[in-house]
């Protein structure tokens, strides 16, 4: 019978010859292939090719030498309700004029402590990568994997679960929040945590983490701050100097305070009752559109109490003395916000600076940092109160407020819109507002007013609310299904 040829043997014999070519390596036609040897060489080669091909087809694919061990992700956030998944994907794929919709969704996920469905992460990849810190651990893992599979961290952190060991490995935003929170409870321990990792941090990280020590400065912080006066990063040095100037007995001056004082004039008015009057001198070359940004840059590193002390006034007296100078009032409102001095801010906004909201919006991002949500709302209410039932139709101011609050605005802002159609009609007809406005209003609308807002929107041209209405639906869904902070 001759030699039998099984599939493996056939492959071993035929493949090298087929690959090399008949001219270089003739086919070995023996055993069961001997019948082919009686045919023309070309036919034999063709048949051998087909037989080998079939043998290869029946070869099972080999597994790789090993498989990667996937990290265990303990993401205890519930998944977005099934009914909302499609709406979410469609909304995020729509072409948008601003990122208010994405921000509203990201903050909505954070507040409700829900997460997008894992299977949807590839479909909403851009949104997930931008806002992963708000979307839960699975989203953070996804983002890290997409960025660089080799560099993907082995562990992921829920902000609530950080401790003194794990905090240094978490994303920066979570670290800042953790440190700020610890600083409130135990300032010394917070500083110690930072000192332990200081040398390994990048310049940007050092700036952010150092800012978290701003509250609760005491003489105990002095040695650390003096040590970092020689830091390589100018921003770190400047911040350290500023903090030291607030510590009694440090002998350090705040250069920013000195610069402000050079521009503030204090005079006395009144015949019978002498009253102080403050005026802020702006640089001569400053354009009107640059004023608010300049004010922010000039006064960001100065606190209310150190300015008042330098002027030999109480803080309230300082506000009263500035009543005729709008620019100085803006600066004081800015410092009151930064220093969380809401009672002073109220005095300013209710007094001579009724448009404090719009003025602060022109200054830039207020960075309310660790301010709790309830305090942020209170802060916003102070700014909104002077407007009553006629809030400004300033898209920039509304966007600014949305970003400052990282969530819905106080009800008082939406009330005029849902109570009567007049404000919206004016907005649409006079300001020629488009769908971006409706999207923004939907993004900032508190949960309690969404039903009424939805009714108001249904009266509008559907083109204006293509994204606003589904956004209200999703935010409602997050609200109902989530656990709220």
């Amino acid at each position, binding site marked *: 019978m001759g030699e039998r040829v099984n599939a493996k043997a056939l492959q071993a014999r035929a493949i090298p010859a087929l690959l090399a070519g008949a*001219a270089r390596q003739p086919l070995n036609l023996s055993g069961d292939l001997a019948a082919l040897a009686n045919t023309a060489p070309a036919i034999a080669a063709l048949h051998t*090719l087909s037989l080998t091909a079939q043998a290869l087809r*029946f070869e099972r694919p*080999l*597994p790789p030498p090993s498989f990667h061990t996937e990290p265990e992700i303990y993401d205890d956030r519930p998944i977005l309700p099934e009914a909302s998944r499609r709406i979410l994907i469609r909304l995020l794929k729509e072409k948008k004029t601003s990122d208010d919709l994405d921000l509203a969704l990201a903050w909505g996920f954070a507040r409700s402590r829900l997460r997008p469905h894992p299977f949807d992460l590839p479909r909403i990849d851009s949104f997930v990568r931008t806002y992963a810190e708000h979307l839960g651990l699975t989203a953070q893992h996804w983002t890290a994997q997409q960025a660089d599979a080799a560099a993907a961290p082995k562990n992921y952190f829920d902000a609530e679960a950080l401790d003194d060991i794990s905090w240094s490995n978490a994303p920066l935003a979570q670290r800042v929040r953790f440190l700020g929170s610890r600083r409130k409870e135990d300032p010394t321990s917070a500083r110690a945590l930072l000192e332990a990792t200081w040398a390994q941090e990048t310049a940007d990280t050092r700036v952010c983490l150092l800012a978290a020590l701003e509250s609760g400065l005491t003489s105990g912080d002095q040695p650390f701050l003096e040590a970092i006066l020689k830091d390589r990063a100018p921003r770190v040095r400047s911040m350290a100097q500023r903090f030291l100037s607030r510590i009694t007995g440090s002998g350090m001056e705040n250069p920013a305070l000195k610069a402000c004082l050079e521009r503030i004039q204090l005079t006395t008015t009144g015949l019978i009752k002498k009253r102080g009057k403050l005026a802020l001198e702006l640089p001569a070359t400053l354009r009107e559109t640059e004023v608010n940004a300049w004010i922010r840059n000039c006064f960001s590193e100065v606190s209310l109490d150190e300015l008042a002390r330098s002027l030999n006034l109480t803080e309230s007296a300082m506000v009263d003395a500035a009543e005729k100078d709008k620019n100085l009032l803006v600066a004081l409102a800015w410092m009151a916000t930064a220093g969380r001095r809401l009672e002073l801010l109220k005095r300013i906004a209710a007094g001579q600076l009724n448009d404090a909201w719009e003025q602060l919006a022109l200054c830039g991002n207020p960075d309310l940092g660790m301010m709790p949500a309830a305090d942020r709302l209170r802060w916003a209410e102070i700014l909104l109160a002077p407007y009553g039932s006629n809030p400004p139709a300033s898209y920039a101011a509304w966007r600014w407020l949305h970003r400052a609050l990282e969530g819905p605005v106080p009800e008082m802002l939406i009330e005029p819109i849902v109570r009567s159609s007049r404000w919206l009609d004016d907005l649409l007809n006079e300001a020629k507002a488009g769908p971006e406005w409706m999207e923004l209003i939907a993004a900032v609308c508190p949960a309690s007013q969404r039903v009424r807002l939805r009714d108001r929107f249904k009266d509008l041209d559907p083109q204006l609310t293509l994204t606003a209405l589904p956004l209200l639906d999703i935010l409602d869904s997050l609200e109902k299904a989530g656990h709220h902070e």
Partner: protein
Amino acid sequence: MALNHEKVEALAPDQSSLDAARKLLKPSSWPAVASNGAGLIWGECQGSGSTPYRVVVSEIDLGYKCTCPSRKFPCKHSLALMWLRADGKLAFATDPVPSWVSEWLSRRRGPSGIPSPTEDTGSKASIQAAVAAVSETKPDPKAEARAAAARERNRQEREASILAGLDDLDLWISDQLDRGLAGFAGHSAEACRLIAKRLVDAKASGLATRLESLPARIFSLPEASRPNAVIRELGQIHLLAEAYRRQSESDEILPSGLKASVRQTIGWSLTREALLSDPEALRVSSTWRVIATLSEVQPDRLRRIETWLWREGGGEGPHAGLLIDFLPVATGAASSGFSIGDRVKAELVFYPGAVPLRAQIAQSFSGAAFSAEALELPKHNLQEAYRKYEEAMLHEPWLDTWVLSARNARLRRHGEQLFLCDRDENPTSLALSLKPAQTSFASPLLGLEKLDALGLWDGYSLTLCWAQTEWGRWVSA
């Protein structure tokens, strides 16, 4: 605004559209028509394609949409639906609005820019003329005999042409073998283009397409795999050619199913009408679920749209069916009439073959409706599923794509490559690599310990279509 014949006439772009619409008025062409009771009507029309076209019309503003690739607006399907509504003879069930209609509504930019029925559009289309256009021609036996003889002559000429083309193919493959297949990939594009052209001239268009797409298939594989893949592909092509030459052999040598498969693969097409009227054709009535829809542009500039159906409930016969539509790329149509997850009760008629897979819908018993229910998959794991694939290959050696189902599987990763494996930790277990294009979409499945999967295996890599998991259903689109 109720539809009436005058409005339909006014909307029709021309008389030929109305004539074509008239041919679609048979209720059997519409497995599903419905209304929401508030001015919206929709339906599924079984046209010449393998999947029905979906049509929706707003009676309020006469907006419409159809999934067919026609460039006439409104198309014959839209006109036919309006005509049926105007006639009032076919009952429109009052149903909740399906998701594909809602999506159209949500995307509408207001009333479509169509002429109001009161405007004179100048089309002068007439329903009366369309109804009267049915011409009755008496059969002419002599003419039919001449036509039959001509068809037989053409068939013999084509057979001879194909055989000549196969001889040239043999020479071409032999040349490649002489040179050695190790370097074939490097010059495959030009070489395959030339032989494909020859085969087109020889009227072996199916084989020509296979050769023309060969370079792309080879280069989609890792470099180390390409030499063996070349052997597999060229060996298979020669096997097809040999099988074609031996069609006259007995059924013991070449079973009839295999003969039919060879002919179709070489390029003999069977029209839908011929298939439906073949009493020997395999018919399976069942409930089918759409598990995948794929679309690709072929080298001949036709878009091939595949709709893969899974047979629910099991039973004798094929466990899956494949509907294929070919559309010119220029029409812009790129999707199947069905969506993944749709469930349809239908009778499928399968093209003859040793392992029947490609089919047409002979009859729909229901319109397609999306279902979120899980599929009841056979109780076998990946190893056993692959064994069934090997059995199928024994019956049809040139089997292209096979639907694999596996329970208790998991997805694993090696480098950037994903693999579908059984859950056991045996290092020698089968591991089927996924297509690289699926890496991003499928990677969320890596976090799961277990999943039940459906995929399309083409002999090299798996297109994962459907996975049932603790997080719900994952689909590839």
